[in-house]
């Protein structure tokens, strides 16, 4: 018979020939030095190729790889998730985190504007009349919106969102605002709440 086909040769190389091999093929291999030599050479080559060790990253790489994939997935903003300024949040709680971020950013901006440009109220200029500001604030409907947005917000979510603020930071900024500025902040918050569908 003729020499082994490619399939038969590779089966021989990988030691896959079994008793099921047709007797005439087995007899041919036993008596054909060329096929034996070819199979032996290719087998040695496959073993040689297999010995190449491949990549061996540090164990630390594996510790962090899943987190790296999770970050990449989060950055892709899949459907049904909320994307806010580069952060992606899923679910109602996280949407509140987004609102809190808006509160902090918005209030800081408004307070900065007020400090630099707005005509200072007597109490603020003096920097001592905290009791008056506190009394007015509790009745202020705009402040109620801010409180409602922040109520029930888990601190872990705020930290997870990377917002480095101490508890009370938003309050301390907001109490510095005039009623008009608080009204504007409330308008911005309500608009953000509607946009987020919360």
């Amino acid at each position, binding site marked *: 018979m003729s020499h082994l086909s*490619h*399939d038969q*040769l*590779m089966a021989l*190389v990988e030691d896959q020939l079994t008793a099921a091999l047709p007797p005439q093929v087995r007899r041919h291999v036993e008596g054909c030095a060329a096929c034996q030599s070819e199979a032996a*050479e*290719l087998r040695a*080559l*496959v073993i*040689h*190729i*297999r*010995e*190449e*060790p*491949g*990549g*061996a*990253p540090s164990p630390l*790489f*594996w510790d962090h*790889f*899943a987190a*790296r*994939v*999770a970050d*990449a*997935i989060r950055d*892709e903003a*899949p459907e049904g998730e909320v994307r806010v300024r580069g952060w992606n949040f*899923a679910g109602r709680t996280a949407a509140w985190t987004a609102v809190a971020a808006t509160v902090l950013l918005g209030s800081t901006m408004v307070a900065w504007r007020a400090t630099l440009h707005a005509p200072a109220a007597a109490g603020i200029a003096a920097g001592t009349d905290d009791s008056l500001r506190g009394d007015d604030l509790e009745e202020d409907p705009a402040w109620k919106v801010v409180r409602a947005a922040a109520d029930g917000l888990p601190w872990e979510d705020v930290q997870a969102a990377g917002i480095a603020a101490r508890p009370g930071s938003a309050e301390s900024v907001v109490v510095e605002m005039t009623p008009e500025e608080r009204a504007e902040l409330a308008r911005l918050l309500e608009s953000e709440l509607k946009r987020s569908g919360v």
Partner: protein
Amino acid sequence: MIQRTAEDADASALAAMDDATAVSAALGGNRAAFDVIVKRHQRQVYQLCYRFVGNHEDASDLAQDVFVRAYRGLRGFKGEAAFATWLYRIGVNVCLNRMGSRTRPATPIAAMDFADTRAESADSALLRTERAAEIRSAIARLPRKQRATLILRVYHEMPHEQIASVLGSSVGAVKANFFHAVANMRKLLRAR
């Protein structure tokens, strides 16, 4: 403490899930379930990518890309093939597509010596790393299908049928590609 115990129980339950169940959980919004999938298959996927590109930086980027694509296409996994086969299919496609674009050169010999060579002489260690570099270089020169077939067969020890499923070809084509890949490797290595 109670919360920690509950988390541990959740983690154990996730780790015990088979791939299909973990996929269903991930599709239901359980991100931790996809983490389990990643951890379960990360080494194989990374090695697959490394065999194609020959350096850690590209291999790790590609492996990440494979899992991101898998997550994005998770609804496309119908369970007709094993999840690993489906993942390998994405991996091979990502790697083959990357072949057309520029990749970093394979890791130079000097930077490759990760294996413990304390019991080896300096000469034999150098020889081993040189041979490894030659093999990687030869594999890199194989035609795409032959390259993929050789990698899956030799390094991942996949049966012909599974390779056919990964590559979307027939078992006969896989066997032919494997033979030609090995024959071409012989030519390429002899030419050095």
